[in-house]
């Protein structure tokens, strides 16, 4: 599967969900395909994307929160899957674009190109709803589930290696303020 095509599949279904994106490809993809105030882009702190998403999820249980993470970054912070499983925020979904390489640094292979399954790690951590779509149709169905059912979800999407197109916008503070204002303005049903 292509990462940008899968990102488009997900983006078409979004309305008022929070999306947190991992440094590098996921951030660039969302900037290019579906820039929106409820996106929080990360540009560093490798491994923290899904932890940030979880912090938002427990603080705003009325909002649905999606982390778009990568295999290299998830491998750096596997422990967070245990925290997600045991805290179990129902409004959190972690999507990992698994291209089996460190794309941003030149395509060096990660552990998932060999014997390691992040879906297996997520199950072992205690996450019950682990999805592994094998094609775009299954990916679309998985995205429908994470946008409607209670989680937490872990969705492992195997994607082709290859850099995202375009140039990254790096106005971190501007994006942060835009995000905080958009989330604060999102009506709470509590």
């Amino acid at each position, binding site marked *: 599967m292509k990462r940008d095509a899968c990102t488009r599949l997900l983006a078409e279904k979004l309305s008022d969900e929070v999306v*947190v994106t991992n440094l590098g490809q996921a951030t660039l993809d969302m900037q290019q395909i579906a820039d929106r105030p409820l996106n*929080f882009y*990360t*540009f*560093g*702190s*490798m*491994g*923290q*994307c*899904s*932890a*940030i*998403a*979880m*912090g*938002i*999820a*427990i*603080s*705003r249980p009325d*909002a649905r929160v999606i982390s778009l993470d990568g295999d290299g970054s998830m491998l750096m*912070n596997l*422990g*967070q899957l*245990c*925290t997600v499983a045991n*805290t179990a925020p129902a409004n959190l979904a972690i999507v990992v674009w698994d291209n089996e390489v460190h794309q941003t640094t030149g395509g060096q292979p990660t552990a998932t190109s060999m014997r390691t399954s992040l879906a297996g790690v997520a199950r072992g951590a205690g996450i019950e709803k682990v999805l592994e779509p094998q094609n775009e149709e299954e990916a679309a169905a998985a995205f429908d589930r994470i946008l409607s059912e209670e989680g937490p979800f872990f969705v492992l999407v195997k994607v082709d290696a290859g850099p995202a197109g375009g140039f990254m916008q790096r106005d*971190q*503070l501007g994006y*942060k303020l835009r*995000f*905080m204002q958009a*989330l*604060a303005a999102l009506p709470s049903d509590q």
Partner: protein
Amino acid sequence: MAQEGWSRTVADALRRNGIRTFATVPDFIVSQVLEHLWADPECKVITVTREEEGLGLLSGAYLAGQRGCLLMQNSGLGNCVNTLASLNNANQIPVVMVISHRGDLGEYNPAQVPMGQAAERVLEALDVRVSQPHTVEAFESEADGLIKLAYTRSMPVAFLLPNDLTGGRYSS
């Protein structure tokens, strides 16, 4: 000897400054603060697997309008360095850290000493404003101001708690 009531004083200062979300990798010393927070139904305390994961989580909480505090040992500060720099500092996301200062006066475990001796300089290098209160009175005189500064300046701050405040931990 610990200062009488130090752990409740710390817990109360955090709570009266509006902090309700806590992340921790516990140790013997900060657990004495955690006891008060665990017992408070208004406080959300999440035990994470590594301290920098707590910074990620509390940064998310801040983006969603909640103040957060990370409680850990100073060895955990070592695990936090890049996230403090590239997430909190680069994005101006404040957080309050409560750090037990192992590896300083009276330490019995050689493995604790190098990080304990480096802790102050690591915080200084990361531009984190620090309070090191040796008494309950010294803590009280700085606590509200330091926490307020964190949110005014949008940067992390740290309470680095010396053994003469907390009683430390001694080998049995």
